[in-house]
């Protein structure tokens, strides 16, 4: 049987099947896909070489690491290249309108706090049209995990600049060079009150898995920025036409914020030091952690008090 035939061969439904408990990076992705993914026609609609597939693998490994029941996960998203990813999971999903992922997730989590709620969003979706919902969800410290796939632009519409596009880079709507400074999404999240903020890249898959698992497990608003290459739209116009060029770019231009990140997760990436001479564009790792009261728990207290007061009034 050829590889393609094997890939196309029908597989039995295996919703209840648990993967064997092998160490994370060793579990074949097929086994995890049987448990967490839902791609019946085996047709991924990512561009060849897209970083979204790697991010999806890391998410599945993170689910596996946390031993999550996928039926107790709900995701929210809007419009963008990434939005197809949610359909490739067995979790529940709301496809809201463009940018509203955090608002939809707030609704799901407030209605059913026992669910794990994630938003899968792009950088344009989350930080341009959805910026308001992002900062307010962070301010509430509601227990959702916001995952931003940052590919430096709007991919779904064909490569226009987004608030994250690096200064001077060429895109379809900055053909003379991007004139605006970019957002640092992590700084924005910290400023808005997110209690867990991390950055990782698809060039560091082991680190990406670990950070995603930690973020999903975090009680409170967790934000993970994944630098996910788009060599087709951004890379091609900025001297990095192949996926591997952009992977190298992420590896060379980033450093970890702490020596605690183990050697094998760094892939040769140095550790950042404030007083050092390194010039890097991206600081990776968990950038902020702060225990704060979580919104659904605080609201449950308010609700319990209001219910008790109403009952005592009715009894009086």
């Amino acid at each position, binding site marked *: 049987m050829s590889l393609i035939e094997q890939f196309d061969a029908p597989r039995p*439904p295996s*919703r209840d099947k648990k993967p064997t408990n092998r160490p994370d990076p060793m579990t074949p992705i097929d086994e995890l896909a049987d448990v967490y993914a*839902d*791609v*019946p*026609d085996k*047709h*991924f*609609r990512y561009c060849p070489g897209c970083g979204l597939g790697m991010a999806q693998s890391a998410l599945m490994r993170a689910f596996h690491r946390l031993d999550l029941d996928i*039926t*107790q996960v*709900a995701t*929210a998203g809007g419009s963008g290249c990434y939005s*197809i990813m*949610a*359909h*490739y999971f*067995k*979790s*529940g*999903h*709301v*496809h*809201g*309108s*463009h940018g*509203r992922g*955090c*608002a*939809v*997730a*707030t*609704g*799901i*989590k*407030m*209605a*059913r706090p*026992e*669910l794990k709620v994630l938003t899968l969003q792009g950088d344009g979706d989350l930080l341009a049209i959805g910026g*308001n*919902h992002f900062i*307010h969800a962070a301010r509430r410290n509601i227990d959702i995990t916001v995952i931003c796939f940052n590919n430096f632009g709007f991919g779904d519409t064909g490569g226009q600049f987004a608030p994250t596009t690096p200064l001077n880079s060429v895109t379809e709507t900055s053909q003379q060079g991007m004139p605006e400074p970019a957002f640092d999404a992590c700084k924005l999240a910290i400023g808005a009150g997110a209690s867990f903020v991390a950055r990782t890249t698809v060039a560091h898959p082991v680190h990406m898995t670990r950070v995603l698992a930690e973020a999903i497990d975090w009680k409170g608003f967790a934000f993970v920025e994944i630098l996910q290459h788009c060599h087709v739209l951004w890379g091609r116009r900025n001297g990095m036409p192949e996926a591997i060029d952009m992977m190298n770019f992420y590896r060379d231009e980033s450093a970890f914020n702490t020596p605690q990140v183990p050697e094998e997760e760094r892939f040769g990436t140095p550790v950042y030091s404030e007083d050092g001479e390194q010039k890097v564009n991206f600081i990776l790792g968990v950038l902020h952690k702060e225990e704060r009261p979580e919104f659904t728990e605080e*609201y449950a207290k*308010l*609700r319990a*008090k*209001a*219910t008790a*007061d*109403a009952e005592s009034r009715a009894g009086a």
Partner: protein
Amino acid sequence: MTRRLLFGNEAFCEGLIAAGVRFYAGYPITPATEVAEAMSRRMPEIGGTYVQMEDELSSVSAIMGASGAGVKSATASAGPGMALLQNELGQAIVAEVPAVLVNVQRAGPGIGNATQSGQMEVMQARYGPNGECPAVAIAPSTVEEAFWLSVKAVNLSERLRTVVIVLGEGLLGLQRAVVDLPNYDEIEQEERPRPTVAPNDFRGIYTTDDPAGIPPMADFGSGYKSVINTVGIQPIGGGDGSVRGQDLTDQDFTIRRLHQKILSRKDEITFTDPYMLDDAEIVYIAFGTQALSARVAAEEARAAGIKAGVLRLITIWPFPDEAVRAACERARAVIVPEMNLGQARMLITNALAGTGVLVEGINHVDSTFITPDEILAKTEEVRTCH
């Protein structure tokens, strides 16, 4: 039964609560603010949730999420807030999310006149969202009816899996009246169709081959995969194994189905209130608060020997054109008093096309009530010109 003095805006809340709404997301906007205020007090005390969102479009997004999680949800807005949320409203309708949206209409375009009332969003309720979006909208006339139609709206939204708009008015929302509230336990609550097959056999993306079908919907966390999306229109990898949406027959089928699921049930969702119509030669057709004037005018006209009657429209969308035609069988003229420049009149003229019935309007956009005297004066005018 309890007798209460309620604002119209409070009556909306109580109706929603009585019908089982346990999630409310809102944003302050005059004259709908009291709905949010009352909900912020009432929701937690009955075990529900009130969230104040950052704008109207996030309110509708939040109720999409909460309704997907299986909790009956609602929001309210007005004026520019209603304009802002059209994007999300369309998405919620096309993704077939049961929810209720109360529009306490203010006056004027743009920011308009926040503290004044109007009936200017008849057309917006149907044509507000982009891309041929179906609509269900009902308009109460009194505070008591604001309660009962809110109950009805929740039940219809669940039955039809769609967003139902309650077309309130500032005049109604900020009016106080004594209402006899029933015991909420006695109120019939409808539920959305839920899957009846085993979780492994439910593909998450709901599909149906019935051209007027309402597909089942699973709650998040119930063990079923549930995807809330514009299935059949949005090109996505379909849960049924195909790459959907590239096929334009799917798009055609889905858009028509979304309309047909409502239109094919028009009999059960179209409500009107006929009054003295059996032999009416002059028919007043009105809705909302202005129907009260029409009723008084008809009684006074009868006292003066004029055969007048009233058709009060309760359901605005889908538009009850059969009821309009039936009411006007013996009519020589129709008078439509409304607080806009003739939105319902346009629909009525359309419904009566070819019948030769004269359709005249009385239109206020200064937010003042149309008085029975004005309607009677118009009646005289219509009678003499015939």
